[in-house]
């Protein structure tokens, strides 16, 4: 019996490690920007290119910055949830239209609905780099002082919205 005890223990440890490894999503990389000030930007607005939008002017509000693009397939999965969230008015949702063509982006919003109070256009992806964007869609929850409190890489799911984002919004809005 004791002959098998050690190999069995080693095997169990190995399986445990592999099981934990399988549970991890390798695409989510911890962001160093959590609890750091959101990088400021001045970008033109998607719908009104003569006007600009800055992160600075959102001071005093808890808001969501959702990075999206018309070429991004997972954005389509996420979109109905964002539309619903915008309708509930639980938190203002702003868009960062990432590396997109203006006409494609506008057509996309016409087709699927526009959840954003406004979208800023990051045509060459520079602001994306400042925010550490590597997989669209990404969503940042920014507090009144302009500090990033939460980052979601990949589509927001109803579970994440209910369990993480909305409770945080409630907390931060106090």
């Amino acid at each position: 019996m004791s002959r098998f005890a050690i190999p069995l223990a080693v095997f169990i440890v190995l399986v445990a490690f592999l099981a934990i490894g399988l549970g991890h999503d390798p695409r989510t990389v911890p962001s160093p920007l959590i609890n750091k000030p959101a990088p400021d930007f001045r970008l033109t607005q998607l719908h009104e290119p003569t006007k600009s939008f800055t992160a600075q002017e959102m001071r005093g509000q808890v808001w969501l910055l959702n990075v999206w693009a018309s070429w991004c397939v997972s954005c389509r999965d996420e979109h109905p949830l964002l539309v619903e969230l915008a309708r509930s008015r639980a938190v203002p949702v702003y868009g960062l239209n990432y590396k997109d063509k203006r006409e494609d982006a506008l057509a996309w919003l016409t087709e699927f609905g526009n959840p954003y109070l406004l979208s800023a256009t990051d045509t060459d992806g520079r602001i994306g780099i400042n925010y550490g964007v590597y997989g669209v869609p990404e969503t940042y929850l920014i507090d009144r002082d302009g500090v990033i409190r939460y980052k979601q890489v990949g589509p927001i799911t109803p579970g994440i919205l209910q369990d993480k984002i909305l409770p945080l919004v409630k907390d931060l809005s106090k």
Partner: protein
Amino acid sequence: MKRVAFQLLLLCLGFMALSAQIAAQEAKPVADDPELEKRVMNLSQELRCLVCQNETLADSRADLAVDLRREIREQMKAGQSDKEIIAFLTARYGQFILYRPPMGPTTYLLWFGPFVLLVIGLGFLHRYLKQRRELISQEPLSPEERRRAEELLKVAPAKEAV
């Protein structure tokens, strides 16, 4: 008929050669300054492409990798040192972007784990070999054992011959 087929084949080969040439012309140097480009590529070798994860920024053809190389190129042109650029990128993408993980409390296990496992393995090997050595008895064979051994040795070659 055969001849026509042969001519067709030649024509196809000709087109293939032509298209290969066209493809070859596409690869133009990215920057006007080869010295700078070399520096960009050297630094990119040290950085991870976050989209493909197992590729360096230098090897990756992902959109983000192209953008990040552009960012590095521009910062180098602005006179930033490699260290400053790495600090810029890790502030945004975290240490994961470094292909060689830095030595630190969170990475001690990663750096020293294999050596710890090696020492444990050597310990087990040592114990095993010691046990084996103890199993080899030093006692000489008794006359009875010697007779049986000889008998067995005699029988074996005869069996082989059959």
